[in-house]
């Protein structure tokens, strides 16, 4: 049905093996790209602290000024690591979702995980003040990210229960149920937006546009293990996703434990997306543009698409973040605006060049 055509693009699939060298070269190039962007990201910024100065001082044992220390170690480094993890998580989640649902439009947004996480965050922003002081004290500034993560998690669990019968998860039911859950989460969010006061509305707007500006070691410590685990686990899915591209029946005949792999894919996406949305708010387009770009470049083999998506997602998000923080310095653009402004046209361009990807 839907997407055999986009995952295996007809005759190309037969020569997929020929693409391996190209895919390896792409992976190597992407690694260099990410390393370069990371160094650049540490080195440039509004405050004008240069990486070479700091590196020189560190090497020569000279003391760093307080300003240099704060800018490099408290602002740019946590921001760099957060950007890498969030970018990789969003892109890998997108790739896994598209593989799992055999649908080129799939993205964590579409199965309601994003909307659920958003609902959690909005709940925390609007109603957080009503929590007992003791609980607020414990959760503190982590309340919003924590609630976003829980929101994404709960949505995924509900979705999973709804679409699983007698131990079998129906992908079609899940896709439709996800759209319904997303609409429901959106409606609940709407109610909260209605009762929010002006200040909360402003917070909601900015949260929805996404930003890495709030990156801190504390947030990173909470979210990095979750995203890291999901990213490390994702490659295990590659063979199963390749099999699923031929249909569930075919995958089962190939000896792939289909149900177990589906469970794992859903868990991976929920964890990676929930944690990413929690630390950075709503960042669009990475999850949908990156996997498609890579499929065009290196073909549909998930063994290459998944790691390449992690690298390209991380690199692109860092690049977008640099644009976000430099373009109107000393102020900052929400990064969701940058990814959408860059991602929208790129996506249209892909569609125009390769209409066949989504023609079914």
């Amino acid at each position: 049905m839907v997407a055999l055509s986009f995952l295996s693009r007809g005759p190309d699939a037969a020569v997929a093996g020929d693409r391996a060298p190209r895919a390896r070269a792409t992976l190597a190039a992407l690694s260099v790209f990410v390393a370069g962007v990371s160094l650049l990201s540490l080195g440039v910024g509004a405050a004008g602290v240069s990486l070479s100065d700091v590196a020189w001082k560190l090497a020569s044992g000279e003391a760093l000024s307080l300003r240099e220390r704060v800018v490099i170690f408290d602002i740019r480094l946590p921001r760099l690591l957060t950007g890498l993890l969030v970018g990789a998580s969003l892109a890998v989640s997108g790739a896994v979702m598209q593989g799992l649902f055999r649908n080129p439009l799939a993205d964590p947004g579409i199965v309601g995980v994003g909307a659920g996480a958003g609902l959690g965050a909005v709940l925390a922003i609007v109603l957080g003040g009503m929590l007992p002081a003791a609980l607020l004290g414990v959760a503190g500034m982590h309340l919003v990210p924590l609630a976003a993560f829980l929101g994404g998690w709960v949505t995924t669990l509900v979705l999973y229960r709804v679409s699983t019968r007698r131990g079998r998860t129906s992908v079609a039911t899940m896709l439709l149920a996800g759209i319904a859950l997303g609409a429901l989460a959106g409606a609940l969010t709407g109610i909260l937006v209605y009762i929010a006061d002006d200040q909360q509305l402003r917070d909601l707007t900015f949260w929805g546009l996404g930003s890495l500006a709030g990156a801190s070691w504390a947030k990173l410590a909470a979210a990095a293990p979750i995203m890291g685990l999901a990213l490390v686990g994702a490659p295990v899915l590659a063979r199963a996703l390749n099999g699923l591209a031929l249909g569930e029946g075919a995958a089962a005949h190939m000896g792939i434990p289909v149900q177990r792999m589906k469970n794992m894919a859903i868990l991976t996406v929920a964890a990676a997306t929930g944690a990413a949305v929690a630390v950075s708010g709503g960042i669009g387009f990475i999850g949908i543009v990156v996997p498609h770009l890579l499929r065009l470049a290196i073909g549909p083999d998930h063994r290459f698409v998944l790691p390449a998506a992690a690298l390209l997602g991380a690199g692109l998000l860092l690049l977008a973040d640099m644009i976000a923080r430099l373009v109107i310095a000393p102020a900052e653009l929400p990064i969701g605006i940058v990814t959408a402004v860059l991602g929208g046209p790129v996506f249209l361009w892909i569609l125009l060049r390769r209409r066949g990807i989504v023609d079914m």
Partner: protein
Amino acid sequence: MIRAALATLMLITPAAAQDRVVVIGGGLAEIVYALGQDHRLVGRDTTASFPPAVNDLPDVGYMRALSPEGLLQLDPDLILASEGAGPLETIQIMQAADVPFVQITEAPSVDAVMERVEMVAQHLHAQDAGAALVADLRAAFATLAHQTAQVTVPQRAMFVLSAQGGRINAAGRDTGASAMIELAGAVNAFDDFAGYRLLTDESIAAAAPDVIVMMDRDGDHALSDAEIASHPALGLTPAAQNGQIIRMNGIYLLGFGPRTAQAAHDLHKAIYPSLAHQGG
């Protein structure tokens, strides 16, 4: 000992105190200018737009989404911020970088205006100018109180924040607009809810305001007299029928800064044209 000596030194030569100040919050920026300390400003946030000169300063973005590196770029030695400024992570990084981040109340009341002036003056070591400004403001508010005391039948006023797509967003109690209406000697026609709300046409008709107050602005949110007259609910209010529609500059009206007494006075004159004439 040394600390005390330093403090004295700073009092004697205020210019030697912080002279790279970033101000976050439109009302606070106005106060800094009113105290004559604007030469020490190196940055401001998006909400600061008065006096016009403040627009020449670098803009660090919206007060609740401040970028830590953007602030540090300005090399500030003091940040004067409205209570709502943030996010928390940015404030914590400022503390880590040894940049004092002072948060000042943003409550919309006369007492809070005085408190803000005193706080800003204290942190800028300009207490004399602060005391003078507070005295001026107290006198202005006393004059205002004297004028509004002449009001025998308070008018019911409605503050319309916006009217997008014909839906009216109005101020309830506990808002700056409501406080200004009261300062001007009128009563808010909508005191059964707090904050700003989208109103139904029925509730507007039931409240029957005598006066409509709005910000003078363009675009989607603006409402012309003709649009008010033709609005199903607003058109039926006594305010629209009698042409009692008042437009004032938003920051002037709602800033709760040094110009608030004057703004309330203007609003009072507009609501009670005959009274203001008698009162001088």
